[in-house]
């Protein structure tokens, strides 16, 4: 048998060896190995129907993807495994984002990938979802970076921006040379953004913006902030550039979740902006809420990746870890946990896939996005917690991805609409009665 075929590592500690490391072992001639390996050849390609199901996709939902989407899936998965996973524990521990990978994310085409034109790849929504899943299988912080850049910054510029704004910013942002952030939330206005206190007032032909924004992803590494502020004509969106007088950002310290992502406070102290900095087509809170809808779509898919990573880690660990003389996978209580995880993962994948199909058909409604964000994030958090318990003491360390994902998913549960808020959205939809206030 081919001795370079690696059985899956029992411990997911170091990332699975990618194809490069498999082939990198054989740079030299190997005449002596030929005979032993010939037997691996030429198995007829009898059946296309898999006899063994993928434990992380028991309904083969992946087979609903197009060849192109599968290629995107494989490419991003491979990139995450080789380029991102080796460093993620270190970044999580240090509380830093691996900014050095931004050019690679750009050259893969992942920044603003589902937008049309202006240097963006123009993929389907499903393809965007698939990419988010693979990115978040790495870390929610990585997916957050891509969500913020593409869905929260590039999307509003594409949708609400002037032609000049699009041409100036989108190609640079797709190339990763300009990093964006999205400033909606304030310290005292989270679930209820209408309570925001940041204000913009006219001063001659210019605008003066004052206030502060809190919990802003990418804030201190951003070159461009899309800032939402109250005006006399309702909420408007402003493009604020790094270095503008009166504009500053400082990082939120002491986070225990999403540590491999930058979260900052933005301070706007009488920042003077020209009229050309206003997003001309964005009027009212519906505009930023529309952006959030885009990003939530990515989250509904992304969390599948985090859940899958936890489930796979638990499955491998359970097979290799012995207690009372047996692998813990052989105990009924362990199997009940794994069966539940596998089932919920299938359910989550089906929800995300259906949502993707609806979105590509132009039919996805905000309430459907709410349903998927809420259900899938809860699913992923539950799986992460169960997986954490199954790994015993190892489960609380950074050696394994599980505690990291578990901690991250707490932030994912809160941002882009808390679980409670999406519950109220669904409740309002089915009863016709709003319970928000």
């Amino acid at each position, binding site marked *: 048998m*081919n001795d370079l075929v690696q059985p899956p590592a029992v411990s997911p500690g170091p990332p699975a060896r990618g194809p490069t490391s498999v*082939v990198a072992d054989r740079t030299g*001639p190997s005449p002596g190995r030929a005979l032993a390996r010939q037997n691996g050849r030429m198995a007829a390609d009898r059946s296309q129907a898999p006899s063994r199901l993928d434990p992380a996709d028991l309904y083969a939902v992946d087979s609903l993807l197009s060849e192109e989407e599968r290629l995107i899936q494989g*490419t991003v998965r491979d990139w995450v495994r080789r380029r991102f996973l080796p460093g993620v524990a270190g970044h999580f521990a240090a509380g830093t984002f691996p900014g050095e990978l931004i050019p690679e994310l750009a050259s893969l085409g992942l920044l603003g990938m589902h937008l049309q034109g202006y240097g963006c790849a123009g993929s389907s929504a499903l393809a965007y979802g698939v990419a988010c899943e693979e990115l978040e299988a790495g870390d929610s912080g990585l997916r957050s970076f891509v969500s913020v850049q593409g869905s929260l910054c590039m999307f509003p510029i594409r949708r609400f921006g002037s032609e000049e704004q699009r041409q100036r910013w989108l190609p640079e942002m797709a190339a990763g040379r300009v990093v964006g952030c999205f400033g909606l939330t304030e310290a005292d206005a989270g679930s209820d953004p209408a309570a925001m206190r940041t204000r913009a007032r006219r001063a001659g032909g210019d605008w003066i913006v004052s206030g502060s924004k809190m919990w802003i992803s990418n804030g201190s590494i951003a070159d461009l902030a899309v800032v939402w502020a109250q005006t006399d004509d309702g909420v408007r969106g402003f493009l604020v550039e790094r270095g503008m007088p009166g504009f500053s950002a400082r990082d939120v310290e002491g986070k225990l979740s999403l540590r491999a992502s930058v979260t900052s406070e933005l301070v706007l102290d009488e920042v003077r902006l020209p009229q050309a900095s206003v997003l001309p087509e964005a009027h009212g809170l519906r505009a930023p809420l529309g952006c959030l809808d885009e990003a939530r779509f990515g989250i509904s898919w992304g969390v599948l990746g985090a859940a899958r990573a936890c489930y796979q880690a638990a499955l491998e660990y359970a097979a290799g870890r012995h207690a009372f003389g047996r692998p813990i996978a052989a105990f009924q209580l362990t199997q009940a946990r794994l069966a539940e995880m596998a089932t919920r993962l299938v359910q989550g994948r089906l929800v995300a896939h259906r949502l993707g199909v609806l979105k590509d058909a132009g039919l996805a409604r905000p309430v459907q996005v709410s349903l998927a964000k809420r259900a899938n994030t809860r699913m992923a958090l539950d799986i992460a917690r169960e997986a954490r318990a199954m790994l015993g003491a190892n489960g609380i360390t950074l050696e394994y991805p599980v505690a990291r994902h578990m901690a991250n998913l707490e932030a994912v549960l809160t941002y882009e609409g808390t679980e409670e808020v999406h519950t109220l959205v669904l409740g309002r939809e089915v009863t016709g009665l709003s319970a928000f206030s």
Partner: protein
Amino acid sequence: MDIAVCVKQIPDPNTPGELDPTTHRLRREGVDAVLDPGDEFGIEAGLALAEAHGGEVRVVSMGPERSVEAIRKALAMGAAGGVLVADPALVGADALTTARVLAAAIRRGPFDLVITSTESTDGYTGVVPQAIAELLGIPAVTFARSVSFDGSTLTVRRQTENGTETVEAGLPCVLSVTAGVNAPRYPSLRGIMAARSKPLDRLSLNDLDVQLGEVDQEIVRVEPAPQRKGGEVVADDGTGAQRILELLRQAKVI
């Protein structure tokens, strides 16, 4: 320069392989099929040469219909077109048959350079590149660790049992590359989306001018590869350095 790169789709090397005890063939059902990671180096080498010196890369593969996916990945990386030879009569083809089919497929188009990997990650016979060269009547430059081209001559640093040697070759020739010769690019999203509209020819044996001989290889028996012996621990009693020197000399490293 027209470059043909041979690529093969193989069962995912990250999943453990399993042999069918009766046919002695690799079980492929339920295992994802991927572009041989070794072939990514060949594609990268071809693309880099074409980008620097003009010309196009065409990928050529023989395999079951689903090998289209492997070709598509090469197209997504930047190859201009692809050819798949898929014919039920080729199931179980051995290395010589494979080389005959590939050589015939390569000959259908213009080529200045044929690039392969030194050995596939699943079959490992490592004879296809040389056989293709022989059938095309051109030289084979094998085991390349680095490649440069000045417009007329290829300069190749080759891996050998004893180190490396540098050789030169004119075109056309067959070049087989080792892993590590370059850093294969990832297909970009744009590349993936562009791959859809690139030409991909599907051929059967009838389309090729090829004589298939008798089946000249048969797998008689299968045995596990011998376990590697454990290494030697050199405890340093004052002569340790001497012993290590000796071992390095034996290994012909120094």
